[in-house]
């Protein structure tokens, strides 16, 4: 990253805000043990206690420290989302590029295949897989990525088709440059903002999906997550626990998603002011 870009980024309030949100999360995650956070699996506290110096956000119905659960949940959510988001993006870029470059039958087949994938609600497939094969969270993340690359692929393909027709690429082709060379030297870098922004939206999609899945209880019950916390807190919606139990995971989720959105918006401005935040479909 050039110093110029970095300077632009750091002077952008959106980026600063997004980065600050991430920094807070990171601080909480890293500093957790240092802050004296309890073991999130310890069930020995008095159930449904109010927040106190001992338990900053109180204790849940199972006698577990809510703050510790929250930190553990954020960590798990982030790991899952990064894995699913990155893999999905990688698949999407590779396949999208391939379709745009090769075209013809390959393009048709891959695009129809992606239509089929789009037609299958990923939640349903994940429920099946989780219920039947009892796979771990990372594997579910990879399956999610395998289900969700088509949205990126379609957008990358569309943009690549545009670039492919542009004058300098045409010129490069006339000069006899190989397809691989053109993709590597021209298309990939030029599309950088597209998939950079695409990554942010994939990440966001993965965060939401992880929340939904854990809300539905599809993960190992011992694995803490924000969605699971919301699910449990929701069970007691009639008690006065919404502000210290229900709200924190909702706020953390909002912060996580906001932080990714902010950073992607700011990157879009800095990298390519021409290309407005191409927030892709299926982001939620």
């Amino acid at each position, binding site marked *: 990253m050039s110093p110029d870009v970095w300077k632009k980024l750091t002077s952008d309030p959106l980026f600063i805000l997004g980065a600050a949100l991430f920094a807070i999360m990171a601080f909480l995650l890293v500093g957790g043990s240092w802050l004296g956070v309890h073991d999130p699996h310890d069930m020995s506290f008095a159930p*449904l206690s109010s927040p106190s110096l001992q338990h900053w956000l109180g204790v849940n119905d*199972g*006698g577990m420290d809510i703050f510790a659960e929250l930190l553990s949940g954020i960590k798990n959510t982030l790991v899952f989302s990064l894995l699913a988001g990155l893999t999905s993006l990688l698949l999407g870029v590779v396949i999208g590029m391939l379709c745009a470059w090769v075209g013809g039958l390959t393009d048709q087949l891959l695009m129809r295949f992606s239509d089929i994938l789009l037609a299958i609600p990923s939640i349903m497939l994940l429920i099946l897989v989780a*219920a*039947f094969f009892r796979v771990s969270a990372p594997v579910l993340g990879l399956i999610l990525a395998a289900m969700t690359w088509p949205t990126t692929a379609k957008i990358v393909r569309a943009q690549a088709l545009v670039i492919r027709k542009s004058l300098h690429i045409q010129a490069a082709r006339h000069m006899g440059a190989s397809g691989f060379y053109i993709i590597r030297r021209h298309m990939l870098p030029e599309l950088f903002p597209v998939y950079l922004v695409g990554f942010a939206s994939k990440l966001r999609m993965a965060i939401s999906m992880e929340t939904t899945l854990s809300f*539905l209880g599809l993960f190992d019950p011992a694995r803490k997550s924000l969605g699971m916390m919301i699910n449990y807190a929701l069970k*007691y919606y009639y008690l006065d626990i919404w502000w210290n139990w229900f709200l924190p995971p909702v706020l953390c989720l909002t912060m996580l998603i906001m932080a990714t959105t902010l950073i992607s918006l700011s990157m879009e401005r800095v990298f390519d002011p021409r290309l407005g935040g191409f927030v892709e479909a299926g982001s939620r």
Partner: protein
Amino acid sequence: MRVSIFFLISTAINISTPVAAQELEIRIADSKGDWGAPNPFHHYPRGPGYVRMSWIFDTLIWKDQSGYIPALATKWLYDPERMVFCFHLNPRAKWHDNTPLTAADVVFTLAYFKKHPYHWISTAPIKTAKALNPHSVEIHLATPYASFLSDIGGSMPILPRHIWENVKEPHSFSAPEAFIGSGPYRFVDFNKAQGSYLFKAFADYYQGRPKADRLIYFRSGRPLVSLSTRQADLCSIDADMAQSLENNGFVVIRNERGVNRKLMLNHRKAPFNQKNFRQALALAIDRQEIIAKSQRGFGTPASYGLLSIDHPMYNPDTPVYHFNLSEARRLLETLGYQRATDGFYHREGQPLEVQLLSSSFSATGQGAPDRDAQVIKKQLENLGVRVELIALEQATADSKIQNWEFDLAVSGHGGLCGDAKILNEMIASSYGAGSVNSARYDENPELNQLLEMQMREMDKNARTKIVYRIQELYAEELPAISLYYPFSLSAYNPHKGIDWFYTKGGIGKGIPIAQNKMSLIRP
């Protein structure tokens, strides 16, 4: 425990329902809504389905807070010599199409259910049925059948012969006539998409015109919200809600302890096939802690003998496994397990590892899983047994339990206050082989023999004695470990003038739902 501010502020906002002023309408909310069309061949095989059907179809006898009461039959007698039950029918009883109800209908119903089984009842012990006159019927038993009154008498809906005698395939018969019964309410509508039911009072009901003119069931994701906004008049609630509802003028009623949570053990495989091992697990489980963590204290430790503490045949001397870690460890060590330095048990180099199945969520994500399995895992690891917790979707877990593909599983069921036949169903394979909740345990011949005996013992005192012994044996053998009875509560709006109650032993076969039709009949 503090109560949500929403509650304190939300006083009765009466969302008036647009019915004529003199018409009384009762609305009952539940979170699932759809329980099948309300006739014996269409309702779901679950309590709420049966209850919806019970408004339309009357049985020979019925139950209220104190026990059996007359329904279609005003009097009933048993002649042990001839093994005959005689029922005298209420001469005023008639069908919703105004045809009189006679003994011939009862005879027909028994024959029809023999041909097209209705699994809520067992027609096997019945030899024949004879109509003595239009209003008396004799039912001859093939063998003595101790559960006759609960089963045939109190659970079997009587079908109108003039409608069903030509119906060859009852499961695909859904014409309007399929919903003609003799109960206090006539069927008007069942909306599958909305999960709603509409019943209208049957003015000529033989026990008098029902109090409410319209009875409506509807689906509500949060029944409590519907209740406190006065959109619902009755719904079942969680124990934590009771206080605030009472403060807001609702009446909260509590059921007997007829539903339990239990720990199923795969006693067909090692190490769970050893009685000592099962007992060690029972000793290591602190049920008070489970109740505290999983139910916020709203539960009672269960009898190890399965039958509820509130059951008339409950044996107070049933063996108890008080939480005792050192005794549990001693038992494990007699089985050859040794505790390693990490605190976990091993035998012959193999670590002692078990899987714990919890089926606490459904695909709809409705309701958060309870903490039972998590607490049990913690307690067993405390004992020195490694536990892998497996959460599976309900139906998936059920089929695993059914096929014996599990080690330990948390499950639960009701019916523990109803007829003692529940013991047979929950213990012996010959009764419960097709059930997920049944322990299907046949290792102790005495136990199985007693189970058979109690079914044939028509004398209540003699039967009680047998049932006492069954509970002792069951508690000793521990084919499954009873954990606790969660509180079961309902709340209703008293301004409608209806006093709802929980039925002694549960509606019909032991359904723990406070929607007894007698609430709307009696003054």
